């Protein structure tokens, strides 16, 4: 199989995961949405060097993935692909912040602690976002945002960006596949091709986006109406969200008191 096709199939995987039938998938979208939002807020609220305190929070993704029957390995692998970006952002900390710190019998620069903490926070935040999209899909996310009273423009913008990125990725993969098959299987583009290809890809994506929008309008789509089934909040949704929120609050309080 051509390399880009493998990547293409993987990139579509998130949407397919949102169709799994698990207890978490059957909850009202607002419950997992709030839980993951609270998780991210808890995660990012710790001070920049609270490396040790972050460790209990690493348990959340495996537990959530287990409950939602999501393949954690796939989500972790996808998260690892974004990790270099976080490394680039945080790599200067150990060089700039050279204050010595004593951890047990080891002495190291304070910057290393900040860097490690940033790495974990970044990794877990991205992983949490992947968990969210794999649980709710685009329609669930829209429903959750609507239930929380966010203005339509917010979830409309979100949907447009998400859908455009999906189309763009598809078009990129299509062009790269065509390129790869006619370039003696050399996956890298030559410098002189970088000029024309992106322009063509963007235009084609725009046109396809327009056709899809037309198809949606022809079937009565209104931007104010989120996709998917109407659901009402039930006791199990509130219980799920409240339990996790309590866990996060306890962990955070522990930090203040401990």
């Amino acid at each position, binding site marked *: 199989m051509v390399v880009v096709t493998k990547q293409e199939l993987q990139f579509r995987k998130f949407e397919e995961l949102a169709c799994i039938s698990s207890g978490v998938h059957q909850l009202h979208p607002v419950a997992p949405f709030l839980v993951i939002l609270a998780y991210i807020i808890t995660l990012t609220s710790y001070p920049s060097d609270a490396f040790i305190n972050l460790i209990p929070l690493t348990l959340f993704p495996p537990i959530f993935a287990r409950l939602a029957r999501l393949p954690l390995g796939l989500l972790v692998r996808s998260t690892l692909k974004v990790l270099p970006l976080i490394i680039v952002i945080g790599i200067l900390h150990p060089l700039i912040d050279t204050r010595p710190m004593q951890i047990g019998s080891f002495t190291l620069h304070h910057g290393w602690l900040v860097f490690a903490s940033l790495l974990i926070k970044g990794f877990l935040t991205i992983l949490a976002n992947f968990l969210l999209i794999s649980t709710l899909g685009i329609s669930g996310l829209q429903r959750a945002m609507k239930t929380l009273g966010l203005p339509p423009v917010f979830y409309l913008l979100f949907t447009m960006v998400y859908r455009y990125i999906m189309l763009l990725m598809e078009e990129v993969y299509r062009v790269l596949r065509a390129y790869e098959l006619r370039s003696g299987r050399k996956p890298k583009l030559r410098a002189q091709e970088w000029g024309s290809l992106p322009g063509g890809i963007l235009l084609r994506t725009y046109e396809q986006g327009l056709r899809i929008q*037309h198809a949606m309008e022809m*079937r009565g789509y209104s931007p104010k109406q989120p996709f998917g089934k109407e659901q009402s909040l039930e006791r199990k949704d509130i219980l799920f969200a409240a339990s996790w929120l309590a866990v996060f609050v306890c962990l955070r309080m522990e930090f203040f008191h401990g």
Partner: protein
Amino acid sequence: MADISIRVEGLSYTYPDGWKVLSDVSFELRTGTSVALVGANGCGKTTLLWLIAGLLEAEQGTVYIDEILLDRKNVRTLQKKLGLAFQHPDDQLFMTTVRQDVEFGPRNAGYEEDEISRRAEEAMKRTGCLHLSDRPPYRLSGGEKRMVSLATLLATDAEILLLDEPTNALDPRSRRNAINLLGELEHTRLIATHDLDMALDICDEVMVMHRGSIAARGPAQLILKDRPLLESVGLESPLSLVLP
């Protein structure tokens, strides 16, 4: 429902790059009839369907749907009477699963969940794609995508179907299934196609387009037997009429 489902008068359209694709097109379609729109590539078939569907604004001329003038104000209302099957089903299928895609139209029409499910089930059953209901549309074969795209139209309240190359790129069995389905429908159908055998099979009339105009119109049997006419517009006689 009016006697005339679609009335087009003096329709012209020029693309922004200056290509005049349609020039003074006029015709009408009686309710419940099935009319094939045939012509060489680039003669303006798709553009004509898009203009009728209100997706493009005509430079000149008017379109009436059920004898109501299509304009900017009522385009969304009149679009509810229309179902457009795009040339490429990939443009039409955008939800995560086939079921969600088929349910999309009835849901936007404001039906109750029970009715949405009933309509989707019925449309999927009718198009033979009920077994695909939980699959993602982008993983389907071309033929399956085509049938699902038809199901998305059948689940809505559309009374007029505008079908752009509905048998394009289908294998013989899928093509036959699509033809049988389209032949059974009670909707008014305008079918842009290169499949002249299908036109002969299921269409009451054929309209021949040539360089942005209607070159001829008449009963399918008559038009599709007119070899000089077909050859003059870059088409060939249907195989079923040529083969002994």
